[in-house]
């Protein structure tokens, strides 16, 4: 089975109101799916359920044909999640954070050396601040450190929760270019953004929520 992500009739209740009502979608290799909807329409919840970080009241998420609870290792091996929370330790420097990240995501990625990390940081023009504790960086810069993981990890499926927030023009262009490259190389992306995403030569389907 190819690396296909599929969600079937995902429903989530928050108390009495129906946050996600029977949401279904499939995401094949090389495809990009943009989840759109007003604030509070359940975009973040849907992404967290897809990553197995949240529990849906009804419905099931499948990765290459199998429910994600059954093949959790294989699924997480191919998954990169970027949530609202930056996912970096403010007390540690960018390089230390990324070193931990590449090691934790193991396998091929752990072959990444400090050189690769510095190269990734350079691409996001953070090399000058690589050794500063992330506490000292601005929100936009911290976001770039988190986004450096896109460069460093070989995950096939990207699940990105508003990756473009607090990024300047240069950062925006860079991330969109990275995403397009990922899609062309057979990777799939599930993302939420408010601004429309323009990726050269990539079919972007959208899923409307709420």
């Amino acid at each position: 089975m190819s690396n296909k992500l599929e969600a079937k009739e995902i429903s989530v209740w928050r108390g009495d109101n129906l946050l996600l009502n029977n949401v279904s979608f499939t995401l094949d290799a090389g495809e990009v799916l943009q989840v759109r909807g007003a604030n509070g329409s359940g975009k973040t919840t849907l992404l967290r359920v897809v990553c197995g970080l949240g529990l849906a009241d009804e419905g099931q998420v499948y990765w290459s044909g199998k429910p994600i609870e059954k093949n959790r290792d294989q699924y997480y091996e191919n998954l990169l999640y970027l949530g609202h929370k930056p996912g970096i330790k403010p007390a540690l420097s960018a390089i230390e954070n990324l070193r931990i990240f590449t090691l934790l995501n193991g396998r091929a990625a752990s072959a990444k050396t400090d050189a690769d990390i510095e190269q990734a940081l350079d691409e996001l023009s953070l090399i000058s601040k690589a050794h500063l504790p992330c506490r000292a960086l601005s929100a936009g810069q911290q976001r770039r450190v988190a986004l450096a993981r896109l460069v460093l990890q070989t995950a096939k499926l990207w699940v990105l929760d508003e990756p473009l927030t607090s990024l300047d023009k240069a950062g925006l262009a860079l991330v969109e270019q990275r995403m397009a490259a990922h899609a062309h190389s057979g990777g799939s992306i599930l993302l939420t953004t408010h601004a429309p995403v323009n990726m050269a030569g990539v079919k972007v389907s959208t899923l409307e929520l709420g």
Partner: protein
Amino acid sequence: MAEFFNMGGYAAFVWPSFGITFLVLWANVWFAKNQFKRVTRETARRSAMTRAKKQARAS
């Protein structure tokens, strides 16, 4: 009868322990039934609301 209630001088311990026990047990029963009635009313309202929403979504 008075001698019975005296409980051989231990009345001050036997009767309170029986009293407290059955008070607490009865409170358990009463609260359980009371909560059941309250939740039934609450569920009726919620299920009516849910059906209304589902019809609204379906139409």
